[in-house]
Each structure stands twice: as C-alpha cells, then as structure tokens.
C-alpha cells in the first residue's frame, strides 16, 4: 500500500491561497487506509481550514468535500465533472499518482497536493506505518529471506551487514533494526545461511529508465488466424 502523510496546515493554506472555491478531494483506497486522505481526513481538514479562516478573519475561501473510491483511475473521476466545474482548484488528498491523474482528467482546473506521498509500506500497528518496498524493479527478496535490504538498510547495501551494526541496530538510528542482522537471523532459522556467503554485485539504480511502463496486453491483430 502507498503511505502518505498530510501536509502541514500552513503549507496547505499557502498553496490554496490564490483560489477561492476549493474542492477537497479524498481517496477511498490507500489514503484512507494510511489515514492521510480518506473521508474522515477530508472532513477534518475541511473543519481545520474553516477554523483557521474564522480565526484569521481573512475568510475568502469556500470549501467543498468529496471522496472518490480511487483517484488513480479516470473512470472513478467521471462523476466529479460537475463538482469540478464549480471550483477554482482541487486539493487532492490522493497520493502523487492521484494528483496527476486528476490533472490529466481535468486539464482546465489547477490540482494541488494535500499530502506528501512517502513510501510503500505496511501498518505496524494502529497509527504506525513502516516502509517496506522501494519499487526497484528487480526483486532480490528470494536471496535475502524476504527482508528487503534496499528499503530497510539505511545504506541500501546488497552485501551486508556493514561495520555500523551494533547489537542488531543500525548506527544511523539506534532504534532501527539492522536489516542485514534480520536477514542473517532469518536465513539461519531457515537453514539457508549459505546465501550470506555469496557476493551480490552492486546495482546501478541510475539505469532504471523513467517513467517506467508495463505492458501486459499482447500486440495482436484480430481476424487473420485466430478469429
């Protein structure tokens, strides 16, 4: 799941400042799950912005709120057309993808991000989220016992641990587990410690061509051999 965090209220107030009528648009999928931009957050933000406006006595904005099931597909946005016509800007509480899909779908309306899209991760417990995947495009989890060193090691090294590990924790943050110690312990438990002895050549992340595209559909011409 994509995890994000709502932008500070000051920043949101700054970016919406030029626009009078603002639609606060939530997303019913990842942003709801990570508590950054679901229906409740949209309504909370709406209330907070109103309070700010009331207390600073420079009330010029009018806010409306709505939450779609998912912002990252055009089809979910179709129902928004009428609402969008009535506003000067959309503050999207969707992830960075949502913001861009909205921008593409509504070319004439400014779209502003209300959250900082942070990482792909999981809920550790209620109210705590951890990063788990860097979307590097070349998964090595088979060799590292299901624990990703690229994401979870501060240095992202493929041959760890480094000398900075101490009592199983990382030198960069003593509350953070050393990913390579975790990998070692789990390999030991799985009796696959030989995987530690192999050398993995460093990867050049700069060669990843961006933006990436994945094509599942095959390039076929109907009508000739197969119907």
């Amino acid at each position, binding site marked *: 799941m994509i995890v994000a965090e709502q932008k*500070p*209220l*000051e920043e949101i107030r700054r970016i919406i400042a030029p626009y009078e009528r603002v639609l606060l648009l939530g997303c*019913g*999928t990842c942003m*709801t*799950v990570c*508590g950054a931009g*679901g*229906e*409740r*957050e949209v*309504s*909370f933000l709406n*209330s*907070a912005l*109103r*309070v*700010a406006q*009331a*207390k*600073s*006595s420079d009330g010029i904005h009018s806010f409306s709120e709505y*939450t779609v*099931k998912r912002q990252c597909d055009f089809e979910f946005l179709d129902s928004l057309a009428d609402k969008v016509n009535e506003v000067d800007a959309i503050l999207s509480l969707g992830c960075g993808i949502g913001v861009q899909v909205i921008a593409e779908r509504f070319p004439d309306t400014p779209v502003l991000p209300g959250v900082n899209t942070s990482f792909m991760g999981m*809920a550790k*417990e*209620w*109210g705590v989220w951890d990063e788990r995947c860097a979307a590097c495009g070349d998964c090595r989890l088979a060799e590292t016992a299901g624990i990703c060193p690229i994401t979870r090691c501060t240095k992202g090294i493929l041959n760890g641990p480094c000398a900075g590990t101490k009592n199983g924790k990382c030198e960069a943050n003593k509350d953070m587990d050393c990913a390579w110690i975790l990998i070692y312990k789990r390999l030991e438990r799985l009796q696959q410690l030989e995987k530690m002895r192999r050398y993995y050549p460093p990867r050049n992340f700069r060669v990843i061509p961006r933006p990436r595209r994945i094509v599942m559909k095959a390039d076929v011409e109907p009508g000739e051999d197969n119907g």
Partner: protein
Amino acid sequence: MDNYQASRMRKASHGRGLIPPCQVACPLHMEIGEYVDLVAQGKVMEALQVIRDDNPFPSICAYVCTHPCEDACRRSQVDKSIAIRALKRFAVEFGGDRMIQLEAETTQSEKVAVVGSGPAGLACAYYLRKLGYPVTIFEAYSELGGMLRVGIPQYRLPREVVDTEVQRLIHMGVEIKANTRVISLDLLFDMGYKAVFITVGAHQSLRMGIEGEESPGVIDGATFLREVNLGLKPSLGEKVAVVGGGNVAMDAARAVVRLGASKVSILYRRSRAEMPAGPDEIEQALEEGVETMFLVAPTKMKRGNGRLSVTCVRMELGEPDAGGRRRPVPIEDSEFNMEFDTLITAIGQAPQISEDFRLRLGRGSTIQVDPVTLTTNRTGVFAGGDAVTGPATVTQALASGRQAAFRIDDYLRHRYPLVDKEAEETLSGELLPKTIEMIRKIERLEPPLLPPKARAKEFKSVELIYNWEAAVNEARRCLRCGMGAEILFQDKCATCLTCLRVCPYHVPYLDEGGTIQIPADQCQACGICVAECPAKAIVLRKPYDRRHIDEELEHALKSAAESKSKPLIIGFCCQYGLFGTGALASLWREGKAGIWIVPVLCVAKLEGGHILRAFEMGAEGVFIAGCGEQCSRENTAFWVLQRVERIRRALSQIGLEPERLQTFNLRATEGDTAEALDNFTERIGELCLASIIKQEVKS
C-alpha cells in the same frame, strides 16, 4: 392520532438496532434498554415516559414483576444481570409517576364489559379507554385489583399503589361495579355490552387429595391470603406448616410470620432447586425465619387434642417429568409424624368458571381461547389472564389484558387483527469468552431491603428504593445489546482494519472472503470504531446515538450565539454516570458566564470534527470532561486523548494556543473539577484578551 393501537405499533426508535433479549423476554416487550440507558443519564422523567409507553401500570410492575428480563440479561454472562425491576421502581418513584394524570375521550359507542378487576382486567380497561370505548369493570369482591389485592401481600405490593392505579382508571372514565358477581354473560349482552372480556383469575386452591384435608385447622393458601389481605387476622396458633413451593406458599409463610406465629415451616416435596417461587422470595422468607423442609409430602392429617397431627413421607427425586423438573418419588417406610396448630395448603390454583357462562374449558379448568385473538367459543366473548393460562405472573396478565383490548378493538371495528408483526430483528447469541474477558466487571447493586427483624412485625414494603447514585451506577452496567456499531456503507469500507485494531473487545473480524464483520451480538456500542473509521463507513445502529452530539452541539452554539456572552467556552461532558447530574448539573445551574455544556453519551463518541466545529463557530476554548477510569467501557480515555493531541497539533498550526483545548477527569472530586475549570476559564479569558490586543495592533 387516528388510531391509538396502530400508532403504538408504529414507533421504532431502534432504527437498525436489534431487539435485545431483555425486551424479547418481557411479556409486555418494554423497551428496557432504552429506559435503563435514560436512568444511566439521570433522565428519570424520560425513562418513566418510555416505561409508560408499554406498561399501563409501571408502579405495580416495579414492585411485583418477576423480571424475566433479568433472567435473559446478557450481562449475567459477564458478572450479574442488570437489576432492571429495581431500576424501574427508581424511575417510577423519582420520575413522578404518582403525579401523572391520564385523560381519555370516548370516541366509540360500543360498550365493553370487563369481568374481573385483576391486572388483566385493569390493563384491558386502560387500553380500551385509550382506544375510546366506554368500559365497565365488574368485580365480585368489594375492592378492585383481583390478585393484586387479595393474593399478593402488602409487604410486596402496598395497597396505595393499587388504589392509585384504580383511581387513575376511574379518572379516565372507567365505570366500576364492585360487589357485583356476573352470573350470566347473556345478561351483559342484554344490557347493551357489545364485547365482554372474562378475566376472573385462578382463585380456587387445588386439593391435595389426602385423608383429613377437611379437618379444622387446614386452610387453603388462596383463602388464607385473601382473608389476610382483606384485613382479617385469622387465628393460626404457634406452629404453622405451609405445603407447597411456589410464590403463594412463600407469601403465605411470610404472612404467617407477620401474624405472629412462632414457628413456620414450609413442606415441599422436591428440593430447593426445583422450587417455582422466585429466588428472592425464598431468600427473603428464609431471612425472616421461615423454616424449610424439603423432600417431604403430607399423606394423612388428623385433628386431635386441639392440634393437627400430620403424617408425612420422605421423597427422593427420580426422572425428570415433561416440564423438566425431577419427579419426586416417595421413599418406602419413611413415614413420620409432626404436629402443627394450622396447616396451609398452597400446591396450586385453578380458575373457577361458572357453567352458566357456557364457555369451553380446557386443561385445569382454564378457558380455551385462540392464542392470537383471545376469542372464546362465544361470539364477542374474549378471555385472558390467569383464567386462561392458570396461575401466572402479573406482567403476563397485563400483556394479556393489552392484547385483549386490541383484539376487542379489531373485533368491534370489523377489522382483521393488527397483530404485532415480527418486523424487527432480535439479537441472539452468547457473548464470546474473548469479549467477556475485556468487559469491565462492575458489581450489581441491589436496592436496600428492610432488615428482617423490622419486616417480621408488620406488612410494610420490604424493598426500599435505590438512591440516585446507586441507580445511575447500576444502569451504567447495561451492555446496550443490539445497539452497537455496524458497517453501514460496505462500498466505502477500505478494509483498512482500523476497527479491528481499535476495538477494545476484539469484536470486528475478517471473514474468509476478506470482508470485515462486526458481529452485532458481541459489540459493546462504545463507539470508538465509529469515531476512528477513516472511511466513515461505520455507524451506531440507533439513529439517536448517531445524531446526538451534532444536535446537542448545534443547540449549544445557537444558544450561545443568542446570549452573546464572552468568552465562549464549549464543554463536552459525559452525560453518563453521576456526571450528568453532579458536577455537570452544577455548571448548568450556576450558568457560568459563557460556558456552554454539550452533553455527550460517552466522550469516546466525540469526533475531531465536533471539537473543530466548536472553534469554528467562535469558541475561544473547549474542554472535554469524561469519567476517566470510572467509565463502564474500556479505553475511552485513551482514544479521547489521541484525538485531543491531534487537534492540539492542528490548533498550533493555525496559530491558536493548544491549551485552548483541555480535558478534565470528572472522576476527581467535584471541588477539584470546579477549581480546574475556573483556572481554565481564566486562562481562556487571558488568551482571548491577548488575541484581541494583537488584532488591534495589527490593524
């Protein structure tokens, strides 16, 4: 109101709530959860209103109901059931039931005769008057009330209570014909009555059928209680035996104690576990010095030398009978003799229906009726109460009287019976051990009783009333079965698992299909998941619970705007427990300048939006007062503090001082809260002034 009967059935305050087991068990199907919750909020008058909606004579039930609701109460799976009857008594006394005057208009022309003035007859007359029919009650004895008057002793049901209800009926326009035994139904029809309700009770004691039953000194329980209750003082001697194990036997034995006999023994052929009398009755009888002899049955009685010689046989328990109770079997050669001055038989009663009524009788000489319409074999003749069921409870009789009134209405209006449809779903299922484990155990508070020594001297009411604090605390124990949370908008649910993670009772779970389920039979209605669900997909089942805070808040904001007093402080205060009436009420009464109280039914239901709304509408400060660890639900304080922190962060980002939002724990003594609140008010005053100065400087 076109039709009282139809309007009564239309009310549905439950919304999507499920009918809790207590309400299902109640013969009158009273909205028990509703009035218990109102008592917990200290709203006794509203509680009484709810009670009166379904019960014509709550003051009577408050004394004598056998409370099947308490037997069904799911709190007994956690610790002990809620003391529902005692709470009803509290609501009746403190809610001012005595002061209620009822009027009824005559809108129909068909006269109805009610034969018998027991609880069923009185209830039937009550509802027929509400429906607008002229009603006459015929009573063979000099006083009205049937078993309420001649069967139930005064220490359980004071006579004034019955008198009050009878007076109320007379005020409603019911015609009373006491000392009038109806000998022929044809005569009633000749007199112009269009329908007759026969509810003559079951006053005839059953005979034991043993030798010597006719001896002087042997008296049957019904006759004995009738004499005592009509003010006679039968002479009984010193040593008295009562045969039987039901409520009549208990009543007789306890009446004998009050008449001054030195030794009272109850002879019962089974053991205590099989006694049909209410456990409280048995307990109180024992406290008053009544002796019990179990597994003993008299076989022969003989009068000689002024005393009664009773031959008894010992019994043992054999196989269970059809009713599930173990059948007593005599032990061979176990006869023994005992001597008493008097023996009272109380082994059961049956109705005595005049043959001239020409009614078809069934088992135990009860009147045969259609269970739905209560019609007998004769057109226009309905029957109910003990005369139909055999000896039963007061509440069952009231229910039967109500049913009869509605069916008579249908009959006279030539209408197909408006039978209660089981439209609403009932709550079933046991609490799971993991849920029970998390529910706070709170001891059941019993209402005080007169000490046994004081009881034995007179016929005064034994049970006293709760004080305010005890009643409120007892009512707070209610688990609110069937009123919990549900995912109303499945399409909104993102399956984020927040509800599953925040529920203190481990109620929500993921089913095999990956959908979140909140089982209604486990939910404790604390409201935490409702306030936390990021998709706002969860709601409480009862509409009132959903709207309550919004409505109260808007009301306070409106009142505040009208009064224009400054600085404006909004206080969200828990309405449950004593706080609704203690510290909170004093705030209200003193009307502290600019403080407006929004009562909430547990602060855990308070959402961030509510608090921000208060600030938006001009509040300079907001405080939340909950009952902290004294709350009957788990983790409520934790979640309130989570939300408070969140809002304080938002406030500081807006440029408002976070201290403008404060929490108080009302569990602290009242003085402390008052002081803390004074400090808070003062501080808000300062902040308010400072911000005004800042504004001035700016401009």
